């Protein structure tokens, strides 16, 4: 294959998945745009956003790749109802690691911002937001990855080609959406308890 053919094929193969993830990214951007009040109410929140979004991709991308390999190897049965023990353990591990990374990112953000003398919300608020956002988006993403990979596999698609675009597209949207929900929930709880953020 010549240079031109290679370039043309690579371009054609990548464009649909990239275009889909662009749509997802823009939706996530709209949610972030709607979060201006929350970003101002919780200083340091924006610092934590890239780590939260990347964790989604790193953890659930790898979970999806694992499930897809398991399907290819016949280790996992492509039915959600089967309640496969391997699948449950892989999902538990993904959720656990994802939440760990989210909470770690929030803790580190607080430490670094304090060291830099930058404004940052209290550690309790940041950690509560990270925990809640990590758990909620983790559950949603686990469900989406399993359902879409199984459905795609049963319809004869290669799950390997599905995982990347699904995780990047839904990961950004769910990541920001559940972050917004978590921030609102935590701020409401803080308000009820009468404590200052």
């Amino acid at each position, binding site marked *: *294959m*010549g*240079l*031109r*053919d*290679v*370039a043309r*094929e*690579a*371009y054609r193969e*990548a*464009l649909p998945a*990239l*275009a889909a*993830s*662009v749509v*997802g*990214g*823009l939706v*996530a*951007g*709209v949610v*972030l*745009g*709607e979060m*201006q009040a929350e*970003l101002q109410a919780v200083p340091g929140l*924006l*610092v934590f*956003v*890239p*780590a939260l*979004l*990347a*964790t989604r*991709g*790193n*953890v659930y991308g*790898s979970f999806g790749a*694992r499930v897809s390999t398991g399907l290819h190897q016949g*280790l996992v049965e492509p039915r959600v109802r089967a309640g496969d023990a*391997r699948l449950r*353990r*892989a999902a*538990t*591990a993904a959720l*656990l*690691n994802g939440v*760990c*990374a989210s909470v*770690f*990112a929030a803790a*580190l*953000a607080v430490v*670094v*911002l304090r060291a830099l003398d930058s404004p940052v919300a209290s550690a309790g608020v940041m950690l509560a937001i990270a925990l809640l956002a990590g758990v909620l988006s983790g559950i949603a993403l686990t469900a989406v990855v399993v359902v879409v990979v199984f459905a795609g596999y049963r319809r004869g698609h290669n799950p390997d080609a599905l995982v*990347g675009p699904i995780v*990047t597209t839904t990961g*950004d949207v769910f990541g*920001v959406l559940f972050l917004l929900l978590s921030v609102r929930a935590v701020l409401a709880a803080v308000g009820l308890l009468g404590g200052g953020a």
Partner: protein
Amino acid sequence: MSTEWSVRAITRAMLPVLLVLTVVELGSGLVLGSFEERLLASPSLLVLVPVTIGTAGNLGSILAARLSTAFHLGTLSFSPRDDVLMGNALATVALAVTLFPAVGLGAWTLAELLGATTLSPVTVAAIALAAGVALAVLAVAVTLAATYAAYRFSLDPDDVVIPVVTNVCDVLGVVVLFAVVIVFT
């Protein structure tokens, strides 16, 4: 192959890398935090943030996956005359040139629907295009370097290159966006 499907084995394989990547991502968060006021002042720029980061990482990971497959098939050589290498690099830049103006206009339109925008659509599209092209070139450079390093250290590029490239491109996405916003506004 019997990869262990236990929570402990998966966590042991994943968590250390994950925590390192989280530290890298926090670096990009700090850059983002440093121009927070400017982002809050221009809603279209705030809307641009996730899509720029994500698309930069995706461009890198798609290139990395393709190079890694070519590498496993033995059809890749690290030479500027290599058609697979140059063709994929060219496609990455072409994808950025196609997608990013649309990304900019999309971000501006959505920000306009959400409320008042402060920048013109042409400015936002130009910011997106400039950031996108710079990012595509950087994504190519990072991917080639990471794939070459994996090859030199006899690591499987499938395991290491994609996470490294995706996360480095995430950070570069924010840094480039920051630089372009300063130049254009």
